[in-house]
């Protein structure tokens, strides 16, 4: 383990950003916990970090990442994924079970949790699958998976086609106290097609997915959650129609939360065209229209969309070199998430910085049921991110941590540089200043 233990430390004069606002303050950390937050804290014995002019955030919580392990360690493993997460400011990360084998047994969940601990850079939680081998036929042992550390369950990559089975899952999840995360996709409507059905898909004859492929299943799962009184979390919301359903469900008191991803907040189908159908823009669900993006941004401001998750989906270079229609879905997202949101949402005035921090830290921590993280406040875990928002960086392969580089941000300039990440008071990432 290369990160050294910082027993006691004061971070001075940082702009501390929480979900409810920002203020200049000192943060006193001891034994991996935040002791105090305030102006002019005195603690002579403590090591001091001068953070004047910099911003301090609660460590980010990613409810949705693919670490490809076990099975595709050539694309990502726990070590590379953890380094990428730490670099991106993440201190808690949920890894999806569409692995080989799937995370459908407590032993596998246990192993994931242990391997994550061994790397020790980020708190990795396994997401268990809802059905055995993610086949949509037989429920997994929810209680055993919960015992092995699964706070959430998902068959991510697929929806449960069987509505009765999904109903049973909602009912049984109450016993196990697990949250069901739904990947909303009507597979008959989507047919594995490549981009959002739109003027552009029609102009270029690209096989297309209508937005209702998402919202039809979202509507069903909201109805099931309401009927059973179960809890539902919608993964990677990409369309205005699903946002509308979410608003109605919230107003009706349904226990539903949701996430979107940086790429849906930044890009649209127009960017797919502009890129010359670069498969780095191919993702599932596919990128939406400008109207979808506007609806997602508005919902993020309102908090109707609670979280931003990365849906970090590493893919090998050769697979992403295939033509757009043949390449696999997915965007590599851990290292660019914050800077992408800061550059494209905060600097453009679409969202405030506290709204972004709410969606990256506070809200996902609450959704996953944590009471010890997601805010910079006394008693909370010392999961912290220090960033210099006045600086820019260019996304390059040389400084990339993930094993795969399938990102549409490659070679782009982003604002907001993460300088340091602390996980339980320990440094897990520190920017190497060149020159």
């Amino acid at each position, binding site marked *: 383990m290369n990160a050294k233990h910082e027993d006691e430390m004061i971070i001075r004069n940082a702009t501390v950003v929480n979900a409810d606002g920002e203020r200049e303050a000192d943060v006193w950390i001891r034994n991996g916990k935040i002791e105090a937050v305030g102006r002019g804290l005195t603690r002579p014995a403590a090591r001091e970090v001068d953070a004047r002019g910099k911003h301090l955030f609660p460590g980010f919580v990613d409810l949705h990442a693919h670490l490809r392990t076990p099975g595709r360690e050539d694309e990502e493993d726990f070590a590379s994924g953890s380094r990428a997460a730490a670099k991106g400011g993440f201190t808690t990360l949920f890894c999806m079970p569409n692995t080989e084998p799937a995370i459908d047994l407590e032993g596998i969940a246990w192993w994931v949790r242990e391997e994550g601990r061994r790397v020790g850079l980020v708190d990795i939680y396994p997401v268990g699958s809802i059905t055995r081998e993610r086949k949509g036929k037989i429920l997994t042992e929810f209680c055993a998976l919960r015992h092995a550390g699964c706070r959430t369950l998902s068959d991510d990559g697929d929806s449960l086609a069987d509505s009765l089975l999904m109903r049973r899952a909602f009912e049984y999840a109450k016993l196990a106290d697990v949250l069901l995360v739904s990947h909303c996709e009507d597979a008959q409507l989507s047919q594995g097609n490549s981009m959002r*059905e*739109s*003027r552009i*898909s*029609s*102009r*270029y*004859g*690209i*096989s*297309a997915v*209508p937005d209702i492929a998402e919202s039809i299943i979202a509507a069903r799962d909201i109805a099931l959650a309401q009927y059973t009184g179960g809890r539902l979390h919608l993964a990677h919301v990409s369309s205005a129609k699903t946002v509308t359903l979410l608003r109605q469900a919230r107003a009706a008191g349904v226990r539903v939360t949701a996430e979107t991803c940086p790429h849906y907040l930044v890009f649209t189908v127009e960017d797919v065209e502009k890129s*010359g*159908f*670069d*498969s780095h823009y191919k993702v599932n669900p596919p990128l939406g229209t400008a109207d979808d993006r506007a609806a997602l941004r508005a919902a993020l401001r309102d908090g109707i969309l609670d979280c931003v998750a990365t849906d970090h989906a590493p893919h090998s270079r*050769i697979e992403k*070199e*295939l*033509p*757009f*229609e*043949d390449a696999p879905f997915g965007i590599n997202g851990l290292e660019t998430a914050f800077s992408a949101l800061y550059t494209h949402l905060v600097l453009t005035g679409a969202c405030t910085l506290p709204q972004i921090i709410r969606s990256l830290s506070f809200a996902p921590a609450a959704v996953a049921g944590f009471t010890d993280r997601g805010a910079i406040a006394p008693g909370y875990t010392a999961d912290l991110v220090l960033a210099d928002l006045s600086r820019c960086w260019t996304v390059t392969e040389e400084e990339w941590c993930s094993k795969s580089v399938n990102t549409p941000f490659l070679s782009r300039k982003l604002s907001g540089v993460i300088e340091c990440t602390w996980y339980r008071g320990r440094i897990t990432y520190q920017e190497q200043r060149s020159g």
Partner: protein
Amino acid sequence: MLGIKALPREEIEAIFSLAKSFQEISTREVKKVPALRGKTLINLFFENSTRTRTSFELAAKRLSADVVNFSASSSSLAKGETIIDTVKNLEAYHPDIFVIRVGSSAALYALTQHTEASIVNAGDGRNEHPTQALLDMFTVSQQLGSCEKLKVLIVGDILHSRVARSNMFGFRKFASQIILCGPPSLVPFDCAEEGIRVEYDLDAAVESADVIIMLRVQQERQTSAFFPSLREYSKNYALTPRRLARARKDALVLHPGPVNWDVEIHSSLKWRVHPLILKQAENGLAVRMAVLFSVGTKKRTL
């Protein structure tokens, strides 16, 4: 040339006037000019198409270019070799022109940065088939004097047709009106662009059309439920003598070939429509010579 979408009208007209002058070469005793002597053309086909490949090959040979045919099955893609790899490998031979046919829509845009050679799109998935549209338009302007301000009716499986897309974009550059006609399940989403009208009733649509482009219908569309049966399809969308009688007397009927007689066009109309369809093939050679000449002499990707 990757598609008609990005091709300015002036370039289309330039290709037509070149094609006109090349037409005569094919009637000579010695069917060859040295226009592209010393140039190398690679026909790179990831999808079988003997007709299109032959037409390009002949066009290149009549211009004295050296032609190599390279058929790569799409299975080699599955094995991990990508189109980019294949093009980079062939790039080692310093070709001047790649003519590429590929099954994936819009697959060629990403290729341009990987080769110094010009690329001519010989059909990329459902996106475009620009030389087919150029030969259709060339044929029309030979017959009617121009492609200007016409009513162009495109009939059949528009959703899956690269020929329809290229023609749509091409004729619109000449202020022609496009009418798409086919079963609603085979008309692409959101066609309400300027100048494009959708009409599901062929009887109504043929009226006052100057040009009728009939598309090939694939048997497999029936099995994936785009329409219930070929019988019902032809009942609604085959060009019959009765329907053709509703059109203008001098209306041109085009088909990219090969025709499924009695499915797309009633066979009793063969005498009426076949000569022009064969003329299309002949014009295709001249148009492809013009395209190859214009991309082969100036290094560029049109």
